[in-house]
């Protein structure tokens, strides 16, 4: 049986952590990941059947290999010992089966909200609330969209008052950094590692 660190020729001591960027279809998730990733967002495919046992109409191997869902993600090497991955969640509801795998081990999540169709981020908010995963809401400011204040968005989303909410531009690196910093501070507060109110 192979063990995690059995071979002296190479050591594997690095830690990987992950954050999620969620929200409705086309809200800017991939853009946000790309704005801070050290590599252009990578793409990989999960196969539908791998997480949907009991779906009996997908009988053959042929059918199994056709239904895929793309995940995209970026990487930030914080140090040789710490790698941060940012995963965009699939924007379409029918890919819910992926969310559990994505959320497993995640430190927290950004929910991107588009004020032109706020309701598209409701499922993400519900998911993270149910799961108890700390999240912040980034209100992505699309050009020409009516600018709601964060308090109006908060009222519409009906989230806990402690959930941070901020305006952002997913294309802008500094803006994304601000969102992620806010998220990590929220995660730390949640873990009672920071005094409340900071």
């Amino acid at each position, binding site marked *: 049986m192979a063990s995690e660190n059995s071979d002296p020729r190479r050591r*594997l001591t*690095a830690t990987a952590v992950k954050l999620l960027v969620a929200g409705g279809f086309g809200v800017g998730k991939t853009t946000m990941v790309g704005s801070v990733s050290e590599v252009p967002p990578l793409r990989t495919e999960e196969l539908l059947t*791998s997480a949907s046992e009991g779906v009996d109409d997908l009988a053959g191997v042929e059918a199994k290999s056709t239904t895929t869902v793309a995940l995209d*993600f970026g*990487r930030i090497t914080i*140090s040789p010992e710490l790698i941060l991955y940012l995963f965009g969640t699939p924007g379409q509801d029918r890919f819910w089966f992926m969310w559990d795998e994505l959320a497993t081990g995640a430190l927290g999540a950004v929910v991107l909200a588009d004020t032109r169709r706020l309701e598209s981020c409701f499922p993400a908010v519900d998911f993270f609330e149910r799961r108890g995963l700390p999240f912040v809401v980034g209100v992505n400011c699309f050009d020409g969209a009516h600018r709601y204040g964060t308090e109006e968005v908060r009222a519409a989303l009906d989230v806990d008052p402690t959930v941070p909410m901020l305006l952002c531009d997913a294309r802008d690196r500094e803006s994304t950094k601000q969102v992620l910093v806010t998220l990590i501070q929220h995660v730390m507060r949640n873990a009672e590692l920071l005094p409340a109110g900071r």
Partner: protein
Amino acid sequence: MSGEDEAWFDEAAGPLVRPYAVTGGRTRSDQFGLELITLVVALPSVAEASALPPEYARIVRLCQRPMSVAEVAALIDLPLPVIKVLLSDLIEQNYVIFRRAAPMSEAPDQHVLQAVLDGIRKL
């Protein structure tokens, strides 16, 4: 898998037609609990990799430094479940070692969070 070389080569033999051909139709890969951000690194060098069947050799060449299962899948361009099976084979044969992220049940480590915060600020 038995661990015999014969089995090893049989399973991987043949051209890559569909992803499932690579894994001999196997889709279960939960034996090591590989997740998206489980880190893997290859033990053989790039030169040693050429002794392996092509799909495995590609992974070994790619994994000369630690990277996540998700990155391997993206860069090799095979679906995640397929990469998990191939990586499991390599782990079983002691060609790859892996390190899982902290389990969900554990509260995130304060030092890790602080390092992530500092790292993002420095970007």
